[in-house]
């Protein structure tokens, strides 16, 4: 498909500029010629051509509204439309972040109440809504850990992370100047308690634990894990990326976690937008509240205002207040569901994952044969051994069946991993169709492995050459 630059024709334009109603002075006079640019090389197209260009691009893209999207650990649930409509209300979109607080009482109320709902859902004392994404929330949480020890006058150099963790965990820790030590998983997919005990010294600031973990398994020994970490003065951090398994069922705060980040774009149904915007609120127990980022919304009587008056805060992690418009959608979602609806989220997310697990277990090998939470992890090793078909081939073949593939090759400790997270918003019929497709592919792998290896056959492009892209990077278009 042609690039927008290839469709450009000199002299065309879509947007027109309003008439000038103030005096015009040459920019060379007002600014100076040395500071001005020469040519401006942007594409020139009529509006209809722009619309057709991007509409064609849209049709070459797969979203939750197009079909089932069981991408493990990404919680690709349906994004309710009323939330989108609400977020487009002028009252929410039009205000400048520095608008007088008197103009923004509705926004401030929303932020204040949303933070309160999240605190109740997670069993935490308070939440900051400032971080822009899950990984940004992790970074903020690790900064809070750093501040906690700094205030105590202790230097601790290391943070523990299980080998099943998302890559963002060690990267967030490194971006905050800590070392990473990896905790092994045990035979049943949980934290190896002996190894944790061995690693958990007075030089360790804490443990970052995803619960349920990326194998979709709840950490059964959570009580002991919390004790081991706390006894050495460490803090227990919960990566809440998988919170869709737990809301309304149990609360990370009650389980002993001191800090949690949530991904509003996962558990709280805000759309992923091709990779963002997300929102990564951070919640903490009472003893860590002073360290939350500033500013924070405070309430006095019926009025809300911003306050920076928290001298022990880690400071700011983002300009302004975070991804406000994303929070509007998450707020609308929580208010729609209420407590009973929130509980139904996790119950049915877990039901759906276990249903898929049971339907596919005769066809693909399970990584860990336990009741799973919101996602189940298979390994494609059987297919690889029997017919030389890789997990990547199975994933690509799913495209021909009209499904987005699961997450593959993650978690890293499972070879040829296939990680399936159906979410609660999918019907039994959709799950059955998906399972039938997976079973059919398992059969194809046996009978006609070349077909699976050559997939996809029906997509706008066939498999792309990643190696070429990395070896000869072409990251912007230049006319030869």
């Amino acid at each position, binding site marked *: 498909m042609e690039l927008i630059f290839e469709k450009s024709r000199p002299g065309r334009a879509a947007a027109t500029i309003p008439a000038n109603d103030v005096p015009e002075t040459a920019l060379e006079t007002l600014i100076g010629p040395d500071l001005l640019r020469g040519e401006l090389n942007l594409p020139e197209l009529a509006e209809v051509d722009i619309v057709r260009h991007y509409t064609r691009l849209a049709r070459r893209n797969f979203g939750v509204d197009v079909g089932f999207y069981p991408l493990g650990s990404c919680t690709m649930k349906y994004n309710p439309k009323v939330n989108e409509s609400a977020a487009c209300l002028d009252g929410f979109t039009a205000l400048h972040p520095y608008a007088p607080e008197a103009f923004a009482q509705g926004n401030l109320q929303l932020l204040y109440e949303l933070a309160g709902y999240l605190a109740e859902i997670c069993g935490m004392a308070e939440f900051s809504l400032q971080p822009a994404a899950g990984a940004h929330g992790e970074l903020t949480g690790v900064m809070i850990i750093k501040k906690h020890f700094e205030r105590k006058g202790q230097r601790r150099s290391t943070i523990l992370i299980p080998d099943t963790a998302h890559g963002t965990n060690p990267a967030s820790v490194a971006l905050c100047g800590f070392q990473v030590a990896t905790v092994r998983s045990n035979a049943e997919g949980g934290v190896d308690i002996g190894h944790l005990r061995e690693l958990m010294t007075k030089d360790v600031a804490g443990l970052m634990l995803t619960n349920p973990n990326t194998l979709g398994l709840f950490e059964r020994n959570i009580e002991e894990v919390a004790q081991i970490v706390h006894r050495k003065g460490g803090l227990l951090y919960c990566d809440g990326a998988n919170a869709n398994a737990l809301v309304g069922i149990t609360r990370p705060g009650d389980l002993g976690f001191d800090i949690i980040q949530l991904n509003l774009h996962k558990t709280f149904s805000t759309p992923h937008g091709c990779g963002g915007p997300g929102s990564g609120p951070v919640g903490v127990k009472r003893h860590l509240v002073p360290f939350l980022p500033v500013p924070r919304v405070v309430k006095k009587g019926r009025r809300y205002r911003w306050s920076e008056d928290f001298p022990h805060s880690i400071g700011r992690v983002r300009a302004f207040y975070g991804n406000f418009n994303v929070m509007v959608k998450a707020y609308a979602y929580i208010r729609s569901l209420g407590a009973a609806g929130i509980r139904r989220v996790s119950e049915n997310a877990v039901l759906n994952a276990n249903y898929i697990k049971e339907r596919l277990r005769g066809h693909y090998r399970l990584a860990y044969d336990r009741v799973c939470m919101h996602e189940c992890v298979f390994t494609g090793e059987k297919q690889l051994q029997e017919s030389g078909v890789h997990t990547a081939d199975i994933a690509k073949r799913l495209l021909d069946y009209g499904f987005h593939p699961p997450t593959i090759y993650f978690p890293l400790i499972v070879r040829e991993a296939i990680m399936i997270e159906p979410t609660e918003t999918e019907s039994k019929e959709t799950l059955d169709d998906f399972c039938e497709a997976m079973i059919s592919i398992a059969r194809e792998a046996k009978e006609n492995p070349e077909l699976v290896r050559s997939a996809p056959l029906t997509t706008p492009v066939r498999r792309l050459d990643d190696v070429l892209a*990395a070896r000869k990077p072409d990251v912007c278009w230049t006319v030869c």
Partner: protein
Amino acid sequence: MDYVPHTPEDQKEMLRAIGAESLEALFADIPATYRLNRLLDLPAPLAEQEIWEHMSRLAARNRLPVATLTGAGAYRHYIPAVVSHIVGRSEFYTAYTPYQAEISQGILQAIYEYQTMITRLTGTQVANASMYDGATAMAEAAVLSAKSLGRSRLLVARSVHPEYRKVLGTYAWANGYACEEVPFGATGQLERDALRELLDDRTAAVLVQSPNFFGVIEDIGPLADLAHRRGALLVAGFSDPTALGVLKPPGESGADFVVGEGQGFGNPLNYGGPYLGILASTEAFMRKIPGRLVGATVDREGRRGYVLTLQTREQHIRREKATSNICSNEALCMLAAAVYLASLGKNLKRLAALNVWKANYLKEALSALPGWRPLFTGPVYNEFAMSCPDAKEANRRLEKAGFTGGYDLSKDYPELGGGILFCATEMLRREDMDRAVSLMQ
């Protein structure tokens, strides 16, 4: 209401297939003492009509301004209707990161086109698919500078947005870097002599903004030269990205990184977010920059296609050795920016010029008021700082009349002895500005 399609019969059938007695049984791994035996304390659920009414009431508790005279890092521009129509296509907004390239060619090509537009606007060779916002784009450029040079000192212009400096301070603290400020002079531009003295062999980066927080345009070339002479890198920020429509591309003046807030390209004010951080650099940093990058390649049949590339920079491959921890970015805001730029095309230059003229008109008009004068003499884009008899009183009057007034500089810049920062974009008509001026008289 909720969004679970199952009927009780569906649930029963599925439980039977699983071999579980009840939904509760699926949670047996959670120790019973930690399982909630109550419903969460949340407001009662609402039907769609009720949620719509509730959200509308909440939105109506806000007051829409008659006009907005504030910029200070977030800019009110007209957004062509085509932008929301494209961004509202749910093939885009309900998709995840395009890891499965064959069914994500739409967004991948859109990112590739955006990367190209940004390199052309900034005079650079590589631009990523977005950072969280302008402040974090700057902070991550600083961290990357320090890491790649093995240096631990950062020099940031005091004329950089105060909140950007705070975010930079937070990131610097977390990494153990020293962060010092470079003063500005009477023009509102960075003081070169001060910079020359502050620069040393431990300095990793010099961070400036042009237009800076006061709206004043910096001359990037000589600053880049000074930094480079001591082996440091020059990070050039900007305030409003539309300024790039008329200003010399910072990359052409020697900036190693060009970073800033991209909201002004087609994204609503949204009370501060979501916005998009623009981050662009030279070829030298292509394999080091944070965030997602799209590259062109070919498929098995030789057709052109696009993939996420150079992923060995990223957290999901490199874990603690990654350049950054960024995963989710602001892709949809980036798409809005791309559509906006395609829509404006070369008219961006005319739009930017209009911003300059509007700001100069308002500046002149305010300068005629008794006791009012510009704080700085340097050339400005669409913002300018004024000294005035009583900034708080001016804002009070504007607020009373329904205006979002100027940014009061007294808290962040006590050394100025009071001051107020105004912004005029194409959204301000002459009569809005005349009315604002008369209110402040």
